[in-house]
């Protein structure tokens, strides 16, 4: 999933301060799963904002909505009946959702209430960690199902570097050394010989370096 974390309240307050009436929009997808911007967080942020402004003697009217998917024009359309009644939109979706609103409602300011973080997985209750950088040309078949691009601090395709210590990364003892994980996994699979193959310099074009990316499925495109 795409993970996100709510921005500090002070930053959000500064975004919405000029306005009297805002639409606060959550998303029912990834940000709900990572407890950053679903229906529940929309309610909590709404109360926090109202309390903060009340202390200043200012009224902020907030309309709360949570869309099924904020990155999908079909659902963003659901805001059309409400958008003219507000001065601005505050979105709790990932950056994709915020931009979808900006694109559909060109004359309405929209602000992000969360910082979009990474594509990751849940490690345990309340802990998420990065798993994928969307490089566009998956290497997991060569590396025992563990991604060096996303999980090695230096994204070394032929690690580990000389800083791997007791299975941990030199930059932080909380971070696993991706290449230790890869090696352990190759051993468990009986594929140690795979380590001896040099992974060649990566073609980064399918990644962000090739410019903004787009997928066109001719069979589906209308």
């Amino acid at each position, binding site marked *: 999933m795409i993970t996100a974390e709510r921005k500090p309240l002070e930053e959000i307050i500064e975004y919405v301060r000029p306005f009297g009436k805002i639409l606060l929009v959550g998303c029912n997808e990834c940000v709900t799963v990572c407890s950053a911007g679903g229906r529940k967080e929309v309610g909590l942020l709404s109360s926090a904002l109202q309390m903060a402004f009340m202390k200043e003697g200012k009224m902020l009217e907030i309309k709360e909505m949570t869309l099924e998917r904020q990155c999908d024009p079909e659902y963003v359309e659901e805001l059309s009946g409400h958008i003219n009644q507000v001065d601005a939109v505050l979105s709790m979706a990932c950056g994709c959702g915020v931009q979808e609103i900006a694109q559909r409602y060109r004359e309405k300011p929209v602000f992000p209430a969360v910082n979009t973080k990474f594509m990751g997985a849940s490690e345990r209750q309340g802990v998420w960690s990065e798993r994928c950088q969307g490089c566009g040309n998956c290497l997991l078949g060569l590396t025992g199902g563990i991604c060096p691009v996303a999980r090695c*601090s*230096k*994204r*070394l*395709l*032929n*690690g*580990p*570097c*000389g*800083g*791997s*210590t*007791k*299975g941990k990364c*030199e*930059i932080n003892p909380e971070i696993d*050394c991706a*290449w*230790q994980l890869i*090696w352990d996994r190759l051993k468990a699979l009986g594929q140690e010989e795979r*380590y*001896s193959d*040099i992974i*060649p*310099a990566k073609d*980064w074009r399918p990644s962000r370096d090739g410019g903004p990316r787009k997928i066109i499925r001719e069979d589906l495109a209308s």
Partner: protein
Amino acid sequence: MKTESVLEKILAAGHLAVTSECGPPRGALPEKVKEKAEMLRGYVDAINVTDNQTAVVRMSSLSACILIKQLGLDPILQMVTRDRNRLAMQSDILGAYAHGINNMLCLSGDHPCFGDHPMAANVYDLDSMQLIQVVRKMRDEGRFQGGDEIENPPKMFIGAAANPFADPFELRAIRLAKKVKAGVDFIQTQCIYNIDKFGKWMKEICERGLNEKVSILAGITPLKSAGMANYMRNKVPGMDVPEELVKRMAGVPKKDQADEGIKICLETIEQLKTMEGIRGFHIMAIEWEQKVPEIVERAGLLPRPQV
């Protein structure tokens, strides 16, 4: 011979090679570079010039290498893949060769989080293994990484680092084999304090026949004090300083600790001289460069051969 490198010639002639390093200054100070390099004249065969070591901004390795080359000394251009993409690195390699620099050391580099610009973007377009492949392709095939032909290809004698003390240990010899496969000519190792562990690694290197394909220079760093020994033991990732060494340093009065450190370093060199596969020494006297001539002399590594 693959190159015009003096270091290559010395190794090919079967001599024990000696290299040391010069860290460029944190300012536009050419005299500092020259001063440090002059200190090593006649004592080493080539001088490594570090590339923003510990991720701290310094004068570029390439410009300091040029200054050293102009003195008639032989620099080894260190290049980390952290700061620049393959375009920038290949253009610097052309520039270096145009100035007569013909030794390189291919490294991944310390992560920016350790340096003075922890907020910097982390490039890693290539890793050290792939940089070795690029430099070799430039030299042996006369082609850039992208495939185009090079006019007057740079002929670099290609070095890389190896740390036998990092984890997982069982991977360390296999990893060196990968660097050999990538095309490395010489290796400079991490500082050696734990000779037993280093010996185990070297044994595996020799069993795999890698010592026939690559020249291994043993990394030597004299301990300056018990404090330094302790710090290296506990705080530096991938460094293995045995407790006995820390105790030995702490066991002599503070004023004599530096001498004890030099003694340990000389004993280490002596032991390594007879170890199968060792082709020379890379002496990194951190913040203590003026000691290198004395170490080389007392280790019986003088005079440096003329080739």
